[in-house]
């Protein structure tokens, strides 16, 4: 057994009272945060409210924050925290209204999920032999990570863009969107990309990567958003300033081998809107921070940049296919083991609970 101490942000909806309470309980050494909450609820305070069900990180019920970072309570082992003497603060997830204690209102979350038209819209009729679609595993793997999503809300909790625009579709909904855009059986790609590229869509993501960082299942929602953006541009759906901005990076590097920032503003915002930025531009020029060179400077090794561009086209890896899937799903677990190193040393996965030999 071990002693675990927690501070929990309690919230009572009927009175609006908020209070940080500290609890200390005895728990078995293999206990997770969820186990500890159960002990608190059973033996200390029956009124503590939180969601739980599967306790094996597949149902997505127990998303909450520990020391300000979203976690699944059932996945979070407490041994190391308890040993260190640190008293973690447990609170409800962010970006969603709190109902009580650690329970948030998931309605806004599911509304965005449903807004994605989250169901397959077959591109062609059912295979005429009445059988399954013939699709290779390789092609299906394009959405392998997105298919892992358990809708726990950890990514949404941490989303910085949603903090400033609550209507932003957000990482889980967009990941669900890519689940279908990337599915070779789906035929509504263009309609979907049009819809997801609108206001509060793909291009509103600030690329802080918190969703990738905090996702307990390795879905990497930011990667999904990047792939949606790439697919949108590939399909010519690029009216959004975000898309134009991204396109100019490519155009600029292809033509001169470097990023022509002075032209970035008109290319992104359009000429009319750029005129409004004239005063700012003049200031930049005055301090030698920007300027128009004509003809523009061309980098010495521009050929390399152009070749790269050519290669992408020749190999047909435009859009999501060109997005580097640098890691397999769940690979975040992989750094736990170093060949020849101590597999249970600092920075690796939690202390093992191998049963000891009875002798």
């Amino acid at each position, binding site marked *: 057994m071990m002693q675990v101490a927690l501070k929990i942000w309690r919230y009572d909806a009927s009175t609006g009272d908020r209070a940080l309470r500290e609890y200390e309980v005895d728990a078995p050494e293999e206990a997770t945060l969820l186990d500890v909450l159960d002990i608190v609820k059973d033996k200390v305070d*029956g009124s503590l409210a939180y969601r739980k*069900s599967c306790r094996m990180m597949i149902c997505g019920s127990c998303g909450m924050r520990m020391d300000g970072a979203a976690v699944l309570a059932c996945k979070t082992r407490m041994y190391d925290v308890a040993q260190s003497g640190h008293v973690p603060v447990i609170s409800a997830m962010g970006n969603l209204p709190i109902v009580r204690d650690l329970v948030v209102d998931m309605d806004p979350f599911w509304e965005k999920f449903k807004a994605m038209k989250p169901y397959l819209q077959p591109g062609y009729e059912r295979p005429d032999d009445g059988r399954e679609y013939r699709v290779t595993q390789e092609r299906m793997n394009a959405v392998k990570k997105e298919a892992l999503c358990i809708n726990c809300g950890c990514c949404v909790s941490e989303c910085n863009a949603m903090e400033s625009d609550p209507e932003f579709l957000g990482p889980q909904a967009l990941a669900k969107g890519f689940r279908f855009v990337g599915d070779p059986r789906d035929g509504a790609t263009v309609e979907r990309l049009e819809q997801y590229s609108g206001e509060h869509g793909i291009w509103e993501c600030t690329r802080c990567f918190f969703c990738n960082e905090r996702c307990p299942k390795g879905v990497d929602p930011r990667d999904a958003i990047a792939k949606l953006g790439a697919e949108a541009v590939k399909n010519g759906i690029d009216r959004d300033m975000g898309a134009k901005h991204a396109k100019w990076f490519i155009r600029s590097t292809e033509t001169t081998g470097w990023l022509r920032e002075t032209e970035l503003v008109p290319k992104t915002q359009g000429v009319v809107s750029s005129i409004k930025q004239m005063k700012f531009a003049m200031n930049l020029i005055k301090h030698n921070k920007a300027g128009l060179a004509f003809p523009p400077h061309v980098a010495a090794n521009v050929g390399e940049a152009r070749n790269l561009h050519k290669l992408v086209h020749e190999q047909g890896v435009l859009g999501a296919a060109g997005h580097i899937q640098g890691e397999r799903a769940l690979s975040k677990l992989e750094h736990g083991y170093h060949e020849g190193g101590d597999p249970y040393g600092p920075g690796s996965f939690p202390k093992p609970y191998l049963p000891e030999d009875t002798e």
Partner: protein
Amino acid sequence: MIGEHDVLVIGAGCAGMRAAIEAHDAGADVAMISKLHPTRSHSGAAEGGINAALGNAAEDSPETHAYDTVKGSDYLGDQDSIEIFTREAPHDIIQLENWGAFFSRQPDGRLAQRPFGAAGSPRTIYAADITGHVLIQVLYEQVCKRDIKVYEEFFAWQLVVDDERCQGVICWDLLNGGLKTVGGKTTVLATGGAGRQYRVTTNAYACTGDGTAMALRAGVPLKDMEFMQFHPTTLYPTGILLTEGCRGEGAYLLNKDGERFMKRYAPNALELASRDVVSRAEQTEIDAGRGVNGSVMLDMRHLGAERIIERLPGSRELAMTFAGVDPIYEPVPVRPGAHYHMGGIETDSDGATELTGLYAAGECACVSVHGANRLGGNSLMETITFGRRAGRAAAEWAMSHTTIEVPEALERDAERELQELLDRGSGERPWKIREELGTSMLENFAVFRREEQMERQLEIIPELRERFRKVYVEDKGTVFNSDLTQAIELGNMLDTAWCMVQAGLARKESRGAHARPYDYPTRDDEHFLKHSITRWVDDAPELSYGPVRMTKWQPEERKY
């Protein structure tokens, strides 16, 4: 009444959602009631796969599938239902794929199939080892597409039975508080299992047999309650499931001497014998002192990193998180744990129960496809095929009948009962009773069953029920009062556990998951080739028997 619908589905896992989709497509006005959001249902934790004789990986047929299932059931399954089941399964799978399910593929682009325990052919369609998750997602997607109403986080408590007909359900609204009645011309129960009766179980906290208990108290008979399947590979110490797919992909089971002990118990099928056989073998090894602190070892090292990462990523993640062991480099400690309840609410092959207007599907029902022992991969398929059939039958009945009446007296009684529970100012907290139930069930009514232990358990449960009468709910609030619902769940577990032990003690033979090696070590077809039927009479279970429906297959000795 806060709503009226043609068809009411209680529970929103695979069976519930499939029933709701079918009823909707049949033209009925459908609503689902669930104490969890649909995607949180425990169907999502199913890992290994779903059985249908597609014949993609090797030659196969519904008849072979049916034979394997009959044999696996130790001849207690109803063969007419099993034949319907295996015949309709392939079409249901194709439909799921066409809806967008993310199944794994074989190189020619068709659905891949893997070998599973006691199956004559590689028949199990899978999505790596997150098959349940993929099914829950695709079904919820279809529910969204149809815009089917879901009463989310509504805790179904009592069935409304009036005029000898089920007309709806009284629920506790978890989010806002208060008892709410939802009316339905027909009601489909799809509330899943009750594994939480045991301390070591693969089941979620939510699996507390709510629907089974509700039906029982409404006078509906339960069937084959003594048959609780113990899954051979649940993680030490938490009981979390590691899929049969691990063994399907070739993992070994080792005792402390590193011996592949299955060769002594099932020389042909080895690790891929049926689950009851493997669980008994493990328990025998552990009891004989050849285990490692109450476990045996599941060894996947020889499969290699690539195969484990490709086919079994979820199991690896679970082993690493909950046992601190990476199966690529080390064997994983596993032991038998309560997994699946073969018994349940007695239904015909359309899901209809004895009570007019009440249907059941999935784990809470007993069709009975699984008999005395379920084969891996058959339960997901059952939720889909019989969920669909129950949804269709419920919709057809509902659309030919018009009225719903909920007598106010019923609602007042429920209100009073609840108030009494909430008004109680002191008493015993539920957790202690829950822990004692879990520990005693595991000790007295698990893999091997002894007469005197079952007798003791039959004394323990009424004692616990007596203590439960004075249970104290500390939380008096209305918003998300899970203290209240957990107390009600405990009551449901106590009642269904009682039925199980009673039926177990009376079955004086060893069949499937019901093993009595000390007094009745063999199957006794002469006296016990029959279903146990349990009814609730005067606040206690009452046992009787019913016939097994046979078609082609006569009982023979079961060997793997």
